[in-house]
């Protein structure tokens, strides 16, 4: 059969964010795969150099909507290291608790997306319904469902109150119950297992040599977890198990994430039990002394890495972000070798890609610049009206009526 090259993206129902893949197919079989990343580049690294550390915390937090706590904690850790700040224990514990809650919400989200990619929408609806529990808790603790804004250079902004603690414990109990059910579903529902098992195989050695991180690596039996290897926040005082699996495929990645959910519940319980009393932040200077720091954080998707260099002013000299997806996306080509088109969405989804994290820059365009041209909203609207008019459709009367009503 003739080979066809089909584009997956930049706009495609399987991709939740714009990113372009092209797949060469022979029938249903994938012969070649190539990726073109960068559609989400927003210039955050450059923009960080133009802003103060205080503002950068919020900017960095908005790299990604799902692992926002990941990035802000990782950045704040680096800055605190340069400034030599001794962050209070209670703040570290609160950071860990929020981090684990974030992991829960991210993994539940992933499970739903995975279900959707293999046409199992019921799993999507159920997990996302249950995810609301943890989202509500996060909103209560931090003031918002995403972009928590709880980190501060030198600590955290908000304290955990008694009410919060009972609420967290209550919702963790609910979620644990539900997660046990999902583990059962994933281990027994045969139509689901058929779609996950033996798909997107990444052998142990490939995972090592391609530098896979997070659940992707752990499902290939690579026991690598930054929380244990390079403890940050309060993880050196918390006891937890690194969840690994030797299935090497998407099924293994599902089990690892579900296992991590169970670990997260346990972690939150111990963290709350051991929560020390005391301050939640120390005062940070506006100007950070000269220095550099390299900070690592285990995001839900894998190891997140930040490098910060300061030059003694209130603005950083250089901020470098390496999101986990960038490390994992290189394993996708290997996973898809000899795969089928039908498996492509779930294999891409199985690394839990977050392309907003991965790409971070696009130039701020002006409408006048020719090379970097873009259209203003109003121009686009007029263009649309003109186009429709040329096709014999005139909406001006309706528009007028609409304008009057508004």
């Amino acid at each position: 059969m003739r080979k066809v090259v089909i584009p997956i993206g930049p706009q495609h129902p399987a991709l939740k964010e714009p990113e372009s893949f092209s797949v060469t197919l022979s029938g249903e079989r994938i012969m070649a795969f190539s990726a073109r990343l960068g559609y989400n580049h927003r210039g955050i690294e450059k923009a960080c150099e133009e802003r103060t550390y205080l503002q950068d915390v919020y900017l960095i937090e908005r790299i990604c909507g799902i692992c926002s706590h990941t990035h802000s904690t990782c950045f704040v850790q680096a800055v605190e290291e340069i400034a030599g700040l001794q962050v209070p224990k209670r703040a570290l514990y609160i950071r860990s608790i929020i981090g684990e809650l974030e992991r829960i919400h991210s993994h539940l989200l992933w499970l739903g997306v995975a279900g959707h990619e293999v046409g199992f929408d019921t799993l999507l609806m159920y997990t996302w319904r249950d995810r609301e529990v943890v989202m509500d808790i996060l909103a209560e603790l931090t003031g918002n469902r995403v972009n928590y804004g709880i980190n501060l250079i030198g600590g955290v902004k908000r304290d955990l109150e008694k009410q919060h603690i009972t609420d967290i414990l209550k919702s963790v109990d609910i979620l644990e119950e539900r997660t046990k059910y999902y583990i059962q579903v994933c281990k027994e529902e045969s139509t689901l297992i058929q779609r996950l098992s033996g798909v997107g195989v990444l052998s142990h050695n490939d995972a090592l040599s391609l530098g896979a991180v997070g659940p992707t690596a752990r499902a290939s039996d690579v026991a690598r977890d930054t929380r244990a290897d390079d403890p940050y926040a309060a993880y050196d005082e918390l006891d937890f198990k690194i969840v690994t699996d030797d299935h090497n495929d998407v099924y293994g990645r599902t089990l690892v994430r579900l296992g991590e959910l169970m670990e997260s519940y346990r972690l939150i319980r111990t963290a709350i039990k051991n929560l020390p009393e005391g301050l939640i932040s120390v005062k940070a200077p506006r100007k950070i002394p000269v220095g550099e720091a390299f900070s690592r954080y285990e995001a839900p998707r894998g190891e997140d890495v930040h490098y910060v260099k300061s030059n003694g002013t209130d603005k950083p000299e250089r901020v470098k972000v390496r999101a986990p997806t960038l490390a994992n996306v290189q394993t996708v080509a290997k996973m898809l070798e000899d795969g089928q088109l039908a498996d492509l969405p779930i294999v891409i989804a199985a690394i839990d890609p977050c392309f907003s994290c991965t790409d971070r820059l696009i130039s701020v365009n002006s409408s006048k610049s020719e090379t970097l041209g873009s259209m203003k909203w109003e121009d686009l609207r007029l263009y649309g009206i003109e186009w429709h008019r040329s096709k014999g459709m005139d909406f001006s009367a309706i528009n007028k009526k609409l304008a009057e009503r508004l």
Partner: protein
Amino acid sequence: MLISIFNLLVFPGIIFLGVAGMSAEFIDRKLYARMQNRTGPPWFQPWADFIKLVSKEDVVPTEANPRMFRAMPIFALTSTITASFYIPLWSTHALYSFNGDLIVTIYLLTIPTLTYFLGGWYSTSLYSKIGAIRSLTQLFAYEVPLLMCILAPALLANTWSLSEMAKFYSHHHWYWMFNLLGFAISLIALLGKLEKVPFDIPEAETEIVGGTFTEYSGRLLAMFKLSINIETIVGASLVSAVYLPFGLQLTPALGILLYVGKLLFIISILSLSRTIFARFRMDQMVEFCWKIVSPLAFLQMLICLILKGVLAI
């Protein structure tokens, strides 16, 4: 003449089937939503969707063959409506019947799938083409077990006419119980025919966007959607006529109620399977149909043949 026009346009033609199809879509979507713990759409949602599509512009891709592209939805719609004429709905009489209408009905119900293939193929879009090939591959997988398991009751009844079959099963009250295996198989095949989860491979949106219908829009898409809805009703009617042929001699009012009940039962089973299964992959689907479903359909035929000998019909 007038009666023919009435039959064609009102009952059991386009209006009745359209209304029934839309209601079936609503019931399916509502059940699906409720089973997923959602609220689901209001009753007029399928109508609103249909009206919206009809009022929109048809876009025909420049690369596509416009004649084929436009003709396919019409073929799909007409063939499904025609198929309904040979199926006895709540009595033992179909609108038209002759010995062999069983085969004609199945054949007519195959045409929509063929039009999906041709429509997708002539759209010339890559996604459409892959969807088209997939729907054809799928056709070969489910059509054989469907035909075999529908032939089994016909063998038992010793006729090729749906109406005659209905009469036979009305006389022999409990004989339809022998065909329950075939009923299950026909539901599986119906899922494949209607391209619903777990067999919605030809339009798996996460893989190939809209599959066959990627390039369709406006009225043409509305017609395809309507033909799928009508196919649901016709397919469910066929299955209920072949496998649930009881209560056909009741008064028309009770008969209609029973018929609606049977349709609801079949549609709910279809929605339920949509809810609790994940989508199959093409190779798994073909393997499943050939290695599991076909032998079972063959078994059903065997049961009927043996019964025929034992009961000496």
